[in-house]
């Protein structure tokens, strides 16, 4: 798709707010409990493994963990 003729640009303040939002999210993730962190890892595995499988064969250990964490 062609770009809009003159796409609006984000202001420096908005870009700073987006960066700060990312830092806030990262900080919150750091303070999760261990079971919550493990759940986050499993969610990442669920999202990534189908894509990895399309690029190459999955290795035996590359599967979503079967855990109730």
């Amino acid at each position, binding site marked *: 798709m062609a770009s809009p003729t003159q*796409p609006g640009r984000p202001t420096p303040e908005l870009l700073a707010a987006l960066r700060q939002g990312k830092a806030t999210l990262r900080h919150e993730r750091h303070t999760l409990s261990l079971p919550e962190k493990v759940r986050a890892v499993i969610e990442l595995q669920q999202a990534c493994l189908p894509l990895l499988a399309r690029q190459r064969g999955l290795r035996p250990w590359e599967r979503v963990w079967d855990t109730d964490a």
Partner: protein
Amino acid sequence: MTGFAIALATLNEMKAAGVLSDYAVGGAMALVFWTEPVPTYDLDVLVWLPTREGPIVSLSEVYDWLAARGWAAHAEHVLVAGIPVQFLPAHDALADEALTTAAMLDYSGVPVRVVRPEYLVALYLEPQARTAKRRERAAALGEGALFDHQRLQDIMLRFHLTW
């Protein structure tokens, strides 16, 4: 449908509804489409918003549209089906080109536009984006079988980027 697929389908809905003029998945989750996965907490989406006069000062229209569908904003992210999604308006001509040239791919039956690896590297090499972590990711992308080194050279030359 997994949470990630729902989040991608929501991007397509937003484009169809005119909330976004166009989008392409960027950042660490875009890497996953081209190379090995890397740890990340959120889904970065490069976007063009419908043309408005003047600079973009907030993403409230995007957040309001999603909130009306039950996805709430927090810390400049919107939690869509459990995936924190951050919308990044294209900030310069390189970002525009990354959007224009994005690849149409598929994730579990959901079509999705993804920034091509050469543009992911170029965006990582912009002065305001350079970090050790991103340089490492750029190197990993460059090792991918589908990576077009000539294309990256051309982009770096035109946008005055260096390693």
